[in-house]
């Protein structure tokens, strides 16, 4: 384990989200609603990284991320890695991927879109471009850039 990770104590059980785009850690906590979940969370910001210059790291104790949360994470920081920790060891390494259709996690910014007006309806977006994270609502056709994505 690298020196950087030792700045904060290793966790016994839970999830470590590594290689987060620097500065995105706080947004991830907010979007995933982790801060309000009652578990112990450590957020490391601007940690020196071998692969890239800097990164953020989040450690969540006693909790593993759901599919839905991983999908949101993929949109917030596509290069992040999710490590599931069980009994102080990495039990599972997940490379997160952005699905071709993003369902139920993003709100369409078009207030007049049916997805914002029909009771009980879900949202679905097509991934138009992997690199720029441009997505498009399959209902009204509105295209959204990465910075304007609003999560449900």
């Amino acid at each position, binding site marked *: 384990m690298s020196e950087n990770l030792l700045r904060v104590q290793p966790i016994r059980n839970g999830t470590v989200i590594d290689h987060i785009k620097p500065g995105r850690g706080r947004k991830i906590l907010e979007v995933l609603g982790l801060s309000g979940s009652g578990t112990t969370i450590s957020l490391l910001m601007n940690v020196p990284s071998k692969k890239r210059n800097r990164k953020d790291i989040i450690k969540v104790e006693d909790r593993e991320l759901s599919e839905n949360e991983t999908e949101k994470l993929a949109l917030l920081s596509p290069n992040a890695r999710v490590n599931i920790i069980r009994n102080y060891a990495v039990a599972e390494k997940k490379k997160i991927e952005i699905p071709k259709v993003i369902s139920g996690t993003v709100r369409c910014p*078009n207030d*007049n*879109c*049916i*997805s914002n*007006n*029909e*009771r*009980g*309806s879900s949202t679905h977006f097509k991934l138009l471009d992997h690199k720029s994270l441009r997505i498009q*609502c*399959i*209902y*009204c*056709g*509105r*295209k959204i850039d990465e910075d304007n994505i609003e999560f449900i």
Partner: protein
Amino acid sequence: MKHVVSIEDLDNKRIMGLLKRAKQLVPVAEGKKKSKALDGKILATCFFEPSTRTRLSFESAMQRLGGTCIGFADPSATSHLKGETLLDAIRMVAGYSDVIVLRHPHEGSAKLASEVSEVPVINGGDGAGQHPTQTLLDLFTIKEEIGKLEGLNVGMLGDLRYGRTVHSLSQALDRFKAQFYFISPKTLGMPTHVTDELQNDWSTHKNLDEVLGKLDVLYVTRIQKERFPDIEDYKRVAGAYRINAEILQKAKPKMRILHPLPRVDEISTDVDGTKHAAYFRQAFNGVPVRMALLEQLMGKKK
């Protein structure tokens, strides 16, 4: 299931097939020939906002083909107001009919409806979104008036920002290698989400004069009062984009003017008698084009 939600659902080959069939159906649309092609079939018109032209032309098309129509033209007469969801309404109507035409104030409604409907859904206009049968009848009109769809010089005039007919028509004509001239006040210009997608040349202009002589087709849209906070601004802008017979002397003899109607005063009535005026024939064309589509969705396979 062949839903028709967006003009993008139809490839060029299918569009050309529909236009060809529409031409053959003109005598039936005029009542000169009888057809029983859709005998026993039921069309449901679900209009959650009013649109007389679209609804009546669909009903006329269906009845000319021997079918019948059910539906509503005003959501206040339905359980929509009692809080019924669109999807519940569609599931119910799909059980009563063979095809549904949906008009709805929210963008993406037809797409959502198509996910649950057991019968084909035709988008009859969803908010500021798509209205594919309008685009089809515009294409049909251009083809009939000019003789072809390929490589035309097309001017679009008026409110290009909010006018959804010009958005869809630009997308469609772009596939037929049109060159576009967008003529509008600056605040009502063609949105970038449309121009970004165009493969062919386009340019923007403040005055019709600059380009009128080059045009094969001039598509005019209404500039709506409610787009202007100041009524004086509206009068000034609307006045600057008004067309009359005198202005049109500079146009090619074969140039045709289209308008989705209703018009207010953006085209002076003295244009109606000129050879340029195609808008009334365009309104009629809604019937044969919709007949061709209904026949394709429900008719017997030949």
